[in-house]
């Protein structure tokens, strides 16, 4: 699992590459836990190369949501593969998180 951060003005884009499971979730957790992340208005999660997510990966996002909301940082997922979106859907998390098809929609969200 590789996480690449691309900061630009008030938006931080995180590119996820690989499989997010109970072994690799710590990599993402470390990135989302950085205090500086709360200085951005928006954090965009590019899921184009995210090929797998388990409950451990979902748990990392859920565990930071309140902190982001309290700091008025919007978390938006985009470019999500169907099989990964299906996992969010099965738990009903697609209704609680902002998931859009493309970068342009993520920027507009």
């Amino acid at each position: 699992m590789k996480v690449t951060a691309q900061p630009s003005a008030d938006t931080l884009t995180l590119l996820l590459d690989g499989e997010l499971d109970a072994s690799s979730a710590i990599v993402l957790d470390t990135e989302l836990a950085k205090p500086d992340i709360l200085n951005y208005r928006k954090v965009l999660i590019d899921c184009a190369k995210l090929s797998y997510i388990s409950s451990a990966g979902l748990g990392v996002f859920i565990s930071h949501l309140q902190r982001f909301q309290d700091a008025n940082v919007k978390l938006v997922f985009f470019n999500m593969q169907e099989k990964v979106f299906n996992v969010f859907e099965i738990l009903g998390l697609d209704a609680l998180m902002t998931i859009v098809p493309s970068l342009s929609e993520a920027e507009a969200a």
Partner: protein
Amino acid sequence: MKSALRIACSRVHLQQVRDFVRNYLNSRQLSEVTVNQVVLAVDEVVANFIIHANGEDETQFLDLTLAFDQHDLNVEIADNGDTIFLPGPTASPDFHAYIQQGRKGGMGMTLVNRLMDRVEFFTRGNHTVCHLSKHLA
């Protein structure tokens, strides 16, 4: 045809488990979403055995067996550790509470129960065994 895999109880082997399940299902004409659902269910149970039942003790091991009975996939995950691990009934996660609490866990078995047709945990001697099955037409 049956396929078997033995892994030590370390979460670094989860990738190997997922590749094992994917390779086994590869010969069937299944959608990517369906394959991923089975892979996820097995990964969740194996992760629970590794982390919660065995405390990531690499001297312990798990045996996985995959077999098709016509269109029904049957998975056995046998924990060779001596800690009996029998998850109780799972309630639907209250995500609003999880978000407020910053909670990371508590979704794995819910996923497994929603993804598979049958989920059973039972004891065999001093060990715990999990059986999962799913109809894959």
